């Protein structure tokens, strides 16, 4: 799980173009949206693409992301349980 969390943080930094950030700067238990990292609805779409591309998880609509993207840890748990690649 910890490896997946690290991998996920690196992926997030890459696809969201969070220049100058390192995995250590992201608290895996902090909210990704609103407070915490301060991501927005476009980032949510980018994370949906990331889940599809790297883990073979397809979401039917953007609303589903709200629960999954609560924190990096929640996201990692969801990926662990649902990944197809």
């Amino acid at each position, binding site marked *: 799980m910890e490896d997946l969390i690290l991998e996920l943080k690196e992926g997030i930094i890459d*696809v969201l*173009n*969070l220049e100058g*950030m390192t995995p250590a700067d992201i608290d895996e238990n902090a909210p990704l949206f609103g407070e915490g990292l301060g991501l927005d609805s*476009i980032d949510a779409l*980018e994370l*949906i*693409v990331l889940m*599809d591309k790297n883990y073979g998880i397809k979401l039917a609509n953007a609303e589903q992301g709200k629960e999954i993207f609560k924190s990096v840890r929640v996201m990692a748990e969801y990926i662990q349980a649902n990944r197809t690649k």
Partner: protein
Amino acid sequence: MGSIVVTGMGIISALGAGKESTLRMLMAGERAIAPIRHLQTRHKDLPVGEVPYSDEELRALIGFPDDRIITRTSLLGRVALREAIEDAHLTDTADGKRIAFISGNTVGGMEKSERYYHDFRTNEEHKEYIAMHDCGACTDLIAEEYAGKFSLITTISTACSSAANAIILGADLIRSGQVDMAVVGGTECLSAFHLNGFNTLMILDPQPCRPFDADRHGLNLGEGAAYLVIERAESACERNIKPLCVLSGYGNACDAYHQTATSPNGEGPFLAMRQALEQSGLQPSDIDYINAHGTGTGNNDECEGIAMMRIFGDTVPPVSSTKSYTGHTTSAAGGVESVISILALQHQFIPANIGFQNAIDKHNFRPVDHVLQPAGLQHVLTNSFGFGGNDSSCIFSIPENAAPVVPFPETSPCYIQSVAQISIQQPLCDDWFDMPVPHTQPYNESNDPDYKNHFPPMVARRLGKLLKRAIVTAKQALGETIPEAIITGTGLGCIENTEKFLVSMLENGEEYLQPTYFMQSTHNTISSQVALQLQCHGYNCTYSHRGTSFDSGLLDALTQIRHGRIRNALVGGQEEMTPAYFEMLGKIGYWRNGDISPDALRASDRQGSFSGSCSLNMLLTNQRDGNTLCAIHDMRMLYQPSDEEMRNILQEMLNRAGITLSDVDAVVMGISGDNDNDLVYKDFHQKFCPNIPIVWYKHLFGESFCASAFGLYAGAVCLHRGRIPNHLLYHPAPEIQNPHNILVFNHFKNKDQALTLLSK
């Protein structure tokens, strides 16, 4: 001055070709949303509003020659344009009229580019399509059939409100007396690029769309084209043509909230509708039907409804979204839905909002769920909103009930107050005037400032290079001023991110595409991002018409300032280049290889010039102060003028300024080292101003679709500094002291031309 009337229209969409077919389907309540037949894509599961003709069938429909190539967007445009022109009897009753053709589109020839991109990059096949990729090329290909009829052509690219803004510009040009008539609207065909782009935003409904329904699930992409012929009522009367309806009001505002979402209280839509109502002199209660933007997405329909409730209170008039019939025809939507609104007025019916069952919680109205035939439909309002919050509304009225259009007041002067640029010269300053940077290679990146000083990381990460340049130059040009209008010219838009999206789509088989790149592919991203950063809700427009993109924006700003509509405007020219696009354009002879020293460029003996990135913003105002650079006396855009017309226009300009040709100190021209291009300039010089020194600027700033912005800038700085340095003189000569009047001439392929007179 009386009303602006509509005297002809033409349409093609999923409902078929022509007004008759459209009307029949509308009245029958039959939607044309169906599985994909013609578009090449893997997403065949997504329903669309596809025009029921293949390219070959469209060609046959209008007799387009077999031996010529053309894009589908231009074919659709040609079908609609021909119907509009015939409907308005333009070919036989409009001799001597000055007629503008203003067409909107967003992805230009993308449907062919995506198909042949591999060839563009690797071999010589299909390379003719490279020159058809941009939005302006698309308009040019449509206009060609009636080229002799038009005196001015331009292209608007404000995403899904493009056609509505074309109507607005046309009306403004007529009201200001610059043209007598205008053919206005837009065109767009389906492309895998567009389909995938909307898909990354997760706003495509896998079922036929249900606008304004509580359970709506997104939009269906459509395609089509539609044009209106508009003119003053007197002009129609002279031609003995009975108007179809009156354009009684229009509004353009910017939501300045988000790149792809409308603000929760629908500020932009509210402002656009309110402006249209104010201009028409009508009360909200006079509106009998609203043809809504109503895409079917969760965000649009909720916010548009809220904006309507802010305007109309508890009594929102009957509403329907005819996208439930046609799908979302994007750039053409403002034209398609204007034609539908006018058909509703003519035939006294309200088209249905198909698929509606339950109202949205926050709404106090239910859209019309079946075709109605009420009596006494008099005024119809139609909305068109685009990405970036480019929101526009138009009101059409039956001719008998027209409120007179408020004429434009007396003219105000217009000044260039400040300019900021990022190019290959030193950025954000005028150092090039005394210390020009020489160039050594045909492809150059801009000399960018450090953007870390300008944007926090969370903002910067979403902005492509061109957006950063545009925002930084905008802020510097504006200083403390809040602009009343933001207008951008860009031939290619954010081509770097457009290319990233396209390449990723082709390489990954239409999977794993990033929405951030798609969002930046629309040309109006630049103007709308500037508005977003500055929180400006005023007029916002984007022109994408090849080498006269900037000039088109300048014409719009100047028209509005001179006629007192606004007091100031930010006008920009924004262009970037990528190595791949540079190579492709090289294939069709745009760029030279090797020596680009001024002497080599002067020789004009080879094809091609060198490429410059171009980012420039200028603040225009109606009042001068100590910092003002110069006055813009006059500006005209022309399409293939005869020598006699050009001579007359130049004379008119000089007369209005109270000067003669001998008072003009220099003529600024875009000589670039490309033989074909330069011959046109030399010909102009010889014919119209043979003894006036030539100022050139592309040897400093390079060639791009918006390079002409730098011509105006160079002229303005010379007037302000009181001298023309010898490095700006095309024919080597000592510098010119104390210039008072400078003429700026720009052309693209000897078709579109722009003439501007600057004075100290």
